[in-house]
């Protein structure tokens, strides 16, 4: 039995309670535990990703119960890649946070580890109800992180965040219940084989269930019209938490990719391609709202939050075409937008901490410490986010444009991607010149309210921007790899066969 698969879940699930139990009064020990755990998660992710080269789909039968009766974890190229992304982003964010943010409130590190556990679980599980459980884990942990350190505005945004997501959880249950009622199973591989066989009389129940799940995943992915939680949440959350949340929207995108290629994919009979007709228009509108939001933003953090929404629109527009080429492009964009979003939120906090009294409001204010250097970092982050070359955003944009070419809506996707890019460029140019350049016209100098942390925050930002550069420089091998990922997504037989072997029992199944 290959126990590696469960370790990305088990490790944070052990470290988090251990921190709460044993070292909750010692912030230094908490940091050591938390950082070590995240580093190991990164290594684990890399090992697992390497293992998918020789063994592309691996399953782990929890409790040793044969699927579909027990819960199964499935590692394939997609989930392995996302584990690495999560751990990488998590590590950068954590390095940023341990310079003081983590001590602003209680239980940052246990919540952080639980959050990583929830995300990893969502990526690994092969069971629809278990996916719900992990959605709950990451929701409640993210809520705890979001309201970390308190404050009235944050509390208010937190209430909206958790309410909307709880309604989403309710819809999730209804959706899963409907699907279970007509297929009798929760195992995703089993569902993949069953949905095609659902009676015509029961098909409406199945599809309503499928569509409600799409809405739930859309909430996570911040698609219009359920994107409303995002700007307030991201702009009010502690910035390192907002940076970590860059991966949370991708959990929604992941769930959409998984469910609507595996379960409601080409083999779903009359329910094939259930999501496409809804996803594409929603994604296009999301792009517009998001990038117009960059232009409308009153604060730097708000601009970044809306840019994240816009990038989700681009990502899901590529997904909604549901072809292998577009999927490979979407996955590249997914990697890129997570990194760029994370970096920008951290950069916003660099500004916040120095621009005493003005924080990230887009108003002229005197210069502050490190204005020039932070301006350069912001420029790089904004270039990546808006898709200006040579950073990963440009490559991602080209790949998406290239990948959706065959779609009958290609003109719409092209036009809106390029048009909204312009909105984002204008928005970021305005925001950046206001915060970083206009200061030269204002006299005086802003002293930071508190002593600034040493170089570690810059290291964290550097890691993320560096990742964007690496993603660009090695775009060749990366796209080759992503092509294999997309190929696997569109050939789900390997996934199904591994989870539900048609001949013989897998090793050690209890019955």
């Amino acid at each position: 039995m290959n126990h590696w698969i469960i370790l990305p879940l088990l490790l944070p699930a052990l470290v988090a309670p251990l921190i709460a139990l044993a070292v909750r009064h010692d912030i230094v020990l908490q940091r050591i535990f938390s950082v070590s755990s995240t580093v190991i998660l990164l290594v684990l992710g890399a090992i697992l990703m390497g293992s998918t080269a020789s063994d592309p789909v691996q399953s782990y039968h929890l409790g040793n119960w044969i699927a579909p009766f027990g819960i199964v974890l499935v590692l394939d190229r997609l989930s392995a890649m996302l584990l690495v992304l999560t751990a990488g982003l998590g590590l950068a964010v954590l390095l940023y946070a341990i310079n003081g943010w983590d001590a602003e409130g209680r239980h940052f590190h246990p919540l952080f580890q639980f959050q990583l556990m929830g995300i990893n679980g969502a990526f690994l599980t092969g069971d629809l109800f278990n996916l719900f459980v992990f959605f709950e884990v990451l929701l409640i942990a993210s809520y705890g992180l979001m309201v970390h350190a308190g404050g009235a505005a944050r509390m208010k945004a937190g209430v909206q965040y958790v309410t909307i997501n709880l309604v989403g959880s309710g819809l999730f249950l209804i959706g899963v219940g409907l699907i279970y009622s007509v297929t009798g199973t929760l195992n995703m591989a089993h569902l993949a084989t069953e949905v095609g066989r659902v009676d015509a009389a029961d098909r409406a129940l199945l599809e309503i269930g499928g569509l409600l799940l799409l809405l739930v995943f859309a909430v996570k992915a911040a698609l219009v019209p359920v994107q409303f939680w995002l700007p307030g949440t991201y702009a009010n959350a502690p910035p390192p938490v907002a940076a970590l949340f860059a991966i949370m929207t991708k959990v929604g995108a992941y769930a959409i990719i998984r469910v609507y290629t595996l379960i409601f994919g080409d083999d779903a009979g009359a329910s094939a391609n259930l999501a496409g007709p809804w996803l594409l228009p929603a994604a296009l509108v999301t792009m517009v709202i998001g990038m117009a939001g960059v232009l409308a933003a009153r604060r730097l953090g708000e601009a970044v939050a809306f840019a994240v929404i816009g990038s989700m629109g681009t990502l899901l527009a590529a997904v909604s075409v549901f072809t292998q080429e577009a999927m490979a492009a979407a996955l590249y964009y997914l990697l890129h937008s997570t990194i760029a979003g994370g970096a920008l939120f951290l950069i916003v906090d660099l500004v916040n901490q120095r621009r005493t009294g003005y924080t990230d409001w887009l108003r002229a204010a005197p210069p502050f410490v490190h204005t020039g250097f932070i301006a350069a970092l912001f420029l790089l982050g904004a270039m990546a986010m808006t898709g200006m070359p040579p950073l990963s955003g440009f490559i991602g944009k080209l790949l998406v444009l290239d990948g959706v070419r065959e779609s009958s809506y290609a003109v719409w996707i092209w036009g809106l991607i390029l048009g909204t890019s312009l909105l984002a460029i204008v928005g970021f140019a305005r925001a950046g010149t206001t915060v970083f350049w206009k200061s030269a016209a204002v006299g005086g100098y802003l002293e930071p309210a508190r002593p600034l942390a040493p170089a570690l925050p810059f290291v964290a930002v550097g890691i993320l921007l560096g990742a964007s550069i690496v993603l660009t420089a090695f775009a060749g091998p990366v796209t080759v790899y992503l092509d294999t990922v997309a190929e696997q997504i569109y050939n789900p037989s390997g996934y199904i066969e591994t989870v539900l072997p048609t001949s013989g029992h897998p090793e050690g199944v209890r019955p």
Partner: protein
Amino acid sequence: MSLALIVILPFLGAVLPALMIRSGRAACALSAAWVTILALGLLLTHVPAVLRGEVIQVGWEWIPALGLNVNFFLDGLGLLFAGLILGIGLLVMIYARFYLAKDDPMGNFYTYLLLFQGAMVGIVLSDNILLLLIFWELTSLTSFLLIGYWRHLPEGRQGARMALIVTGSGGLALIAGMLLLGNIVGSYDLTDILQHDPYEIHNSPLYVPALLLILIGCFTKSAQFPFHFWLPHAMAAPTPVSAYLHSATMVKAGVFLLARLWPVLSGPDIWFYLVATTGLVTMVVGAYIALFKDDLKGLLAFSTVSHLGMMTMLLGFATPMAAAVAVFHIINHATFKAALFMNAGIIDHETGTRDTKKLGGLLLLMPITATLAVIAGASMAGLPPLNGFLSKEMMLAEVNQTAWFGQGWLLPLVVTAGALLSVAYSFRYVVHVFFGPQRDDYPSKPHDPPAGLWLPPAFLVGLVVLIGLFPDAIAGDLVRATTAAVTQGGAPDVHLYLWHGFTPALLMSVIAVAGGALAIWRYERVRAWWYAGPHPEAKAMFDRVVAAAIASSKRLVLGLHNGSLQRYLALMISAALVLGFAGFFTATHGSGARPLLSASPVAAIIWLVLLAGCGMVIRYQRDRLLAVIGVGVVGLIVAAMFVYFSAPDLAMTQISVEVVTTILILLALYFLPKETPVESSPMRRRRDAVLAGLTGLGTGGLAWAVMTRDFTSLSSFYLENAHDLGGGDNVVNVILVDFRGFDTFGEIIVLGIAGLTIFALLHAMTRGELYRRLGAWQLDMTKSADRHPMLMVVITRVMLPLVLLVGVYIFLRGHNMPGGGFIAGLVVAIGLIMQYMASGYGWAAQRMTINYHAFIGGGVLIAAVTGIGAMIIGYPFLTGAFDYFSLPVIGKFEVASALGFDIGVFLTVVGGVMLALAHLSDLGRWVSHAPVNEQPMDTLPGAERRHGEGSE
């Protein structure tokens, strides 16, 4: 390899000035200059081969999936442009060293300049159009940094943004155009594209969209009408930047691309009419505006617009000879225009102004500057024997052979008018600045600049004269090689002469010069005439467009995101309704076949109570206490229904969860207003009612549909195998701790996180602004006189051991009978919380020194370790094991590993619930400013009741 190095060097070298500024301004400028010299030297090594007609190529694969390769190639066109970029770049770098003021950050300047230079060289040497796009956008970005170099100037910031927006949006169009072009050809490599059959490209249905998009990219970059307006505002940049970007390099990138793609795109009528007409209009409009610009750099900027229009027009003619003329004029324009920009910079630097109205009579005060200006200006006007004259004559000759919509006279007429305006503004530059009477009100005393400032333009002026006198000897080979590259083999045999004889072109020139001279002689009258005409102010229009875009974005986005949770939820519920009903109506459906059972009277009563409970919540929703009771009724009825349908486990869970959450809500309600104010308008309430009604109907319908049909599911497997394989008779519990124990593992973590989060939240409330507000909070209700009533204290004390016993009992029997760790945990938590309620948090906490963090942490760890136990002996996480043992007295009993897991569940539930409830009640005590009571109850039996504040 060395070809790629030419591109890479400026990028790598960009670090140098930023570092070298530490050892002084000279070192800084020299470092940048050396990088350029090195790159230029490398380029020159290829000159002989290129002039022989060879094409030098080098390349690597970058993203094969996309067809994006790092391929470079050098032919005549690339050589010409790379030479201009690096050569003029070097001159500008020298010039800038003396131009920049002491407090300008020079390191940044040279860094940006080198980055820009690298991007430009990249454009002209790229052999892959996607790679070219990257450099193209990079020039937009770096020029943004250069134009906004003086960030304290609002004009600088606005000009930079405008340039970025206009050229950036052109770049976006270009991306689409290039992708389409690559699609037609099947390759993004330029050498492949250029060798492709042009007719096949012209006949592709994608040709027209591709052409339009590419032209938008080129026209925005090269400031062609109607995108010309950004260029003058880019003049807010320091003059070296203007001299570099806006004479020789960036604005020529559009012309370069037109020339580069000329072999495959030119030919069809649409090319001619779009490109030649745009060029023509731009040429005339630019020259016309230039004539009336008082700012010298503004005059030169519009003059550049005009000359770029002329080059565009020539490329639009689509004849090889016209292309050759365009190439020649690119060289000539770069020399005299860069010189003039530097000249304007000198004037500005030495007199303190660039406004012609404040200048005049500088001829004798600044003789060197004046000489250079006169020569370069004469070349710009197209006077012999200078290089500007030559290319203008050749251009006029081409114009004479071109008919526009079949009208042979039209083009020569309009172009002559344009040339006349050109002569006029050139004369104006010279006459109004250097001639006329000397003044005594120059902002600073004019004198010739140091050699560092006048040598670079002097070098260019030297070229202006030499090319004019010996055109073929100096520029002939270059023009021929370049034309061959532009036309891809269709090159005519071009020879450059100073004297072409008495031709119609010469006549047109004479008219232009005479007219131009007349216009300057009678400038006041011309100007008055111009004043009467319309003056569309492009910047104001542009600003209005941007402001409108921002305003409408604000209206749209901020209007949508107005912070109202009600709206967000209404939209979300509406989306669910749309999806639900759409799913229903677009898919096949049928009604359930299961026979319906008749309702028993008991069931009917239960459901009536349920309805009443729901009605109560709606009716009394504003009275929060009543609403909580109503919700409690609903919860209990649900529990009753579970009992009715023989699901005791669910019923027990439901009841205990109901109790715990009600206590939690009541504790929270303590801090909240007891009534919900009316905030929604009647309209919105009706909307919400409709949404809620539809959602209820939809959900009810779904439940009905599900329950009226038979279905097979995994549950039969669980029923059959719970005892034999799971070692338990209570299927629900076996599912929870074994079959799907992993779900439970996740859910206890959720509960644990909730406990930690509530603790952290409450902790955050005891600090900062909320702390002050809470501290100032006055209780908004009457307090009970009996804070800790004796009766309650006694009863809870008596019940505590009972409750604990029940908890243990429920826990132990869980595997086979209704019960289990989850329910037991809730029951025990209720027993404990009752002690807090009876005697107060402080009192109870002093006696129950349990840390619930430890419960949560320990619980999750125990559950996890139980699961890991299986891993140690080689089974997957959470694999259960059980066996039956018998002991004397006790008899046969079962030991199951699931028990360990259930202990974890139990502890986490107790910890999570208690951590939340206990701290909430503690906060309540703290807020009401009540000290911790010393006695467990208000009236101690056998003790006299004490009076006073402290007794509470």
